[in-house]
């Protein structure tokens, strides 16, 4: 009896499935669906650090300033204009008039100050105990106070000049949320963002999708779609199938091999540009063998970075000569930084080869793709081959990402492949992280080589406080000369930033900083190519 019932139910299930319309899934042309590999963690701009959360918040929240489309230049945004005092200590913002948060609260200087004060003031009601506010102590430490000096004028006062501050004010921890958010939602404000942006939050179905709708009162250009869905599709193959079938309109998180196949597919448009990152090999200078400068120099000379980029990135990135991406302030012009010269390398290493006779050099690497290394294990294996050509036997140890980070931070390794994704597009955000002695604290390090050099520290701190770009660039070039002399890390590659949209959509532009500005996407009106593009 039971089995008949089950059979009946099952056949019914299939019949029902068959009789329905093709699976259009929110078939309305008024919806744009973006598919990504994982869900956001939180939707509180002050307390997130994962890409999916930031990508979602990009549609909902805005800052006082932002990056001009496609550049690393700053333009006023929720502030109509801004000025910086001559001593570099006071930043004044004239707040844009007529802007309202999604809950109707008007934006003024006091409302703007709220988003900063809740991060810096531990007694602020919205300084939630469960929030880490990790970015505040990392990029905004130089802020002394944030004051609404006039109803529509906000001042940010610093303890000491910080040339990276304006750029830091353009990124997500400095985006504004409604001062009523905490009153309305309590601690749930971390899952219910109230910003001023082109889309407003509607519903979060965890591990499934985040649903947004057009902000009807948006002060800027209204988005073309009534609804925006950020959908979670964890499996790479399924995500690609969804894009091809139209169940998703755009996606990210592609493997290089998939990108290669999509470039020739007329149904989709591949957007790719150099990302704000660097993948590198770090030497732990507290271990004896790689502490020898000639060993590091020889390894640097033995790596063919052009081939490394072809193999490790499969065309989805480019070789790196310096620890900063091209176009950054202070990007140097000396050419021998990434030269490949196996003969010279072998000469240099010859006296030291005995050190590696008993125990191979261990390279630790993570098992999951990162923006700077889409296929880390292949990359490490390639590097192993290059080292063996040099005469150094090498061993690759594959770890999951968190374990890898833990070992790097604690100095529990000899050589490790890792990378850095920049936050605010400033040179300081790379060089201080890699070479500042203050970043070499065991357990919390980002200076994984534990490189400590007084001259380097002085140069970096001076450059951070130097307002004049020319002088600042000179300081960074000097710092990079020091890096080149000591080689605590070997930059290998810069991974590309890749987003794919179906070809019936246009208006999208990749951002240097990686912001996913989906509100600019619109449907192509006719099959003819859009001249504006």
């Amino acid at each position, binding site marked *: 009896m039971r089995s008949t019932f089950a059979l009946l139910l099952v056949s019914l299930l299939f019949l029902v499935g068959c009789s329905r319309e093709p699976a259009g899934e929110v078939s309305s042309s008024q919806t744009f669906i973006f598919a990504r590999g994982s869900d956001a963690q939180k939707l509180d701009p002050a307390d997130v650090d994962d890409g999916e959360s930031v990508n979602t918040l990009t549609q909902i929240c805005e800052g006082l300033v932002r990056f001009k489309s496609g550049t690393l230049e700053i333009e006023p945004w929720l502030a109509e204009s801004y000025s910086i005092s001559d001593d570099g200590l006071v930043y004044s913002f004239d707040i844009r008039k007529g802007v309202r948060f999604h809950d109707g609260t008007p934006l003024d200087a006091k409302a703007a100050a709220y988003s900063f004060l809740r991060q810096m003031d531990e007694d602020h009601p919205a300084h939630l105990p469960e929030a880490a506010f990790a970015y505040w102590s990392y990029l905004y430490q130089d802020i002394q106070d944030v004051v609404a000096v006039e109803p529509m004028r906000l001042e940010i006062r610093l303890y000491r000049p910080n040339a990276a501050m304006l750029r830091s004010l353009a990124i997500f921890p400095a985006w504004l949320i409604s001062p009523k958010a905490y009153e309305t939602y309590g601690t749930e404000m971390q*899952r219910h963002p109230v910003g001023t942006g082109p889309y407003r939050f509607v519903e979060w179905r965890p591990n499934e999708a985040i649903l947004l709708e057009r902000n009807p009162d948006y002060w800027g250009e209204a988005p073309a779609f009534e609804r925006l869905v950020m959908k979670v599709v964890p499996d790479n193959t399924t995500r690609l199938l969804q894009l091809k*079938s139209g169940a998703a309109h755009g996606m990210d998180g592609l493997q290089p091999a998939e990108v290669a196949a999509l470039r020739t597919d007329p149904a989709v448009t591949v957007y790719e540009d150099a990302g704000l990152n660097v993948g590198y090999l770090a030497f732990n200078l507290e271990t004896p063998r790689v502490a020898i400068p000639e060993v590091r120099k020889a390894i640097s000379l033995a790596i063919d970075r052009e081939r490394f980029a072809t193999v490790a990135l499969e065309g989805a990135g480019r070789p790196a000569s310096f620890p900063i991406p091209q176009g950054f302030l202070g990007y140097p012009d000396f050419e021998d930084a990434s030269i490949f010269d196996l003969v010279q390398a072998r000469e240099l290493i010859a006296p030291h080869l005995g050190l590696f006779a008993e125990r191979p050099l261990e390279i630790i690497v993570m098992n999951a793709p990162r923006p700077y290394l889409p296929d880390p294990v292949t990359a490490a294996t390639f590097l192993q081959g290059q080292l063996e050509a040099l005469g150094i036997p090498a061993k690759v140890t594959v770890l999951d990402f968190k374990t890898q980070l833990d070992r790097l931070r604690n100095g529990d390794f000899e050589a490790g492949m890792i990378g850095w994704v920049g936050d605010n597009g400033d040179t300081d955000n790379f060089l201080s992280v890699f070479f500042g002695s203050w970043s070499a604290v065991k357990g919390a390090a980002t200076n994984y080589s534990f490189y400590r050099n007084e001259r380097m520290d002085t140069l970096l701190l001076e450059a951070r406080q130097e307002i004049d770009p020319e002088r600042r660039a000179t300081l960074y070039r000097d710092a990079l000369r020091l890096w080149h002399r000591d080689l605590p890390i070997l930059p290998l590659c810069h991974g590309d930033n890749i987003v794919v949209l179906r070809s019936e959509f246009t208006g999208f532009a990749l951002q240097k900083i990686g912001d996913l500005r989906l509100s600019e996407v619109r449907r192509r009106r006719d099959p003819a190519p859009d001249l504006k593009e």
Partner: protein
Amino acid sequence: MTAALAKKLSFFVGLYLFASLAIFAAIDAVPGDPIASRFGKAIDPARVALERERLGLDESWPIRYLISQQQFLAGDWGRSLTTGRETLEDLQRFMPATVELSLSALALGVAVGLSVALAAALGAHPWLTRLAQGIGSIGLIVPIFWIGILLLVVGAWWLGWFPMGGRSDLAIGERGFVEVLRYLALPTACLSFFPMASVATVTFARLQEPELQAFVAALRSRGYGPWRIVWRHLLRIAAAPTITVVGTSFGALLGGAFMTETVFSWPGIGRYLVSAILGRDLFVAQNVLTFLVLLVIAVAFVADLVVWKLDPKKGGEES
């Protein structure tokens, strides 16, 4: 009777203690500081130390095990360190999706597996025997994610009958019954291969035993029709092995559910658990894992009792 029951119960309680200790040890051995990873790029060692103390991470392991068990049993499962959501709320959110998927896959698998095995036992067609054996091999050998992708390509892309993964239309509002079934169909079919194979294999083997075949032949010679033989006799005989298989394969079903959930973007507990482990949300991982193990043990226990009830002689022999 009561003594036998008590013996069974104590066995399962012992199993739980062993499993919970094993889970604790495994989670404890996972490298990577769960607190440090919460602070992302800017770790403040002083705050990490404070947080470790607050969470009692510096106690000795037996104490931590006892505390974690006490909290688990009291239903105090805490919050996720990465999302800030209550673990119990998350369980209530993600578990129904997995239960929905697992039960429908179980129903479909048992229905098809049992039908094929029964039909083969009646000797209706020789190819039915091959089918029963074939289902057994395919379901146990072919990887679940491969079946999943195949179903997506055929059912969702070529035919366009079913949605391409997900659990609901992403429209705002309530889900209709038809919508539920449409989204459930492909993942159910995918996950059903495993129980289908187990049930088909075990039941087929039981029904092919010579004395049963002789029994069927005898019934046939008396002029009983095939339906009557199945209803009156074979189903009863097949019930015990089927229930045993269902009871013991429930754990494997949950394991398979994780793969199915990934391929079909199904927001279930399997995906939640794996991302908790990878994200070093270790308290979440430990509590959810312990809960799932408890569930698997409970199902096995109930299945054992049912089989015991169905066949007191068999149960008596075992205990």
